[in-house]
């Protein structure tokens, strides 16, 4: 029995949802470095713009309120947690450290609010980056 040429053609490899790929990792990295960049790479520019404005807005408000920028090696557990949260801001955190933006200590109540804005901005950026990664590897549909 002979097979037709059409039957011999192998089926095209389908993308498995949740499968890691270099593109998905690139999206994750880009989304961490610049808020919204992951969604922009995926062509979802409205979401990218909204995420960028929301996270950058929290960063600017935090800086305006003289929020504290945490450093990694103080030895205090709360400082380490604050540093981990703020590291989620990616490039924005690096810029703050490079140019000495923000405060080194919390001086009043609003500065404490500012510190929370900065930590939450980092955490929200991590959520946004993971969302972009899920979109890139097919785990999230749209």
């Amino acid at each position, binding site marked *: 029995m002979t097979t037709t040429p059409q039957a011999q053609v192998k089926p095209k490899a389908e993308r498995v949802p949740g499968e890691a790929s270099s593109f998905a990792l690139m999206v994750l990295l880009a989304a961490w470095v610049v808020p919204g960049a992951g969604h922009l790479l995926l062509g979802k520019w409205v*979401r990218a713009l*909204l*995420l960028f*404005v*929301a*996270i950058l*807005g*929290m960063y600017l*408000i935090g800086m*305006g*309120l003289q929020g504290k920028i945490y450093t990694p090696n103080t030895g205090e557990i709360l400082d380490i947690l604050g540093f981990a949260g703020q590291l989620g801001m990616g490039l924005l955190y690096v810029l703050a450290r490079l140019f000495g933006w923000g405060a080194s200590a919390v001086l009043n*109540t*609003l500065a404490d*609010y500012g510190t*929370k*804005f900065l930590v*939450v*901005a980092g955490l*929200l950026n991590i*959520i*946004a980056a*993971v*969302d972009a990664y899920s979109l890139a590897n097919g785990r*999230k*549909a*749209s």
Partner: protein
Amino acid sequence: MLSHFSAVLLFALCCSVVFGITQRSQPKMMVRFGAYCFVLFVGGVIVASWVMWLIKH
């Protein structure tokens, strides 16, 4: 200069935008979930404020 309440409103707005986009798939549901989060944030703050006022008085 921001007041405490306006800081809360901005915080709730930014968080709600990110939550809406990341936790739902369809644009309509994103808006609905974002609005739901915003109401919960601000409502929670108002309730907590009244509770603290009652405790003080």
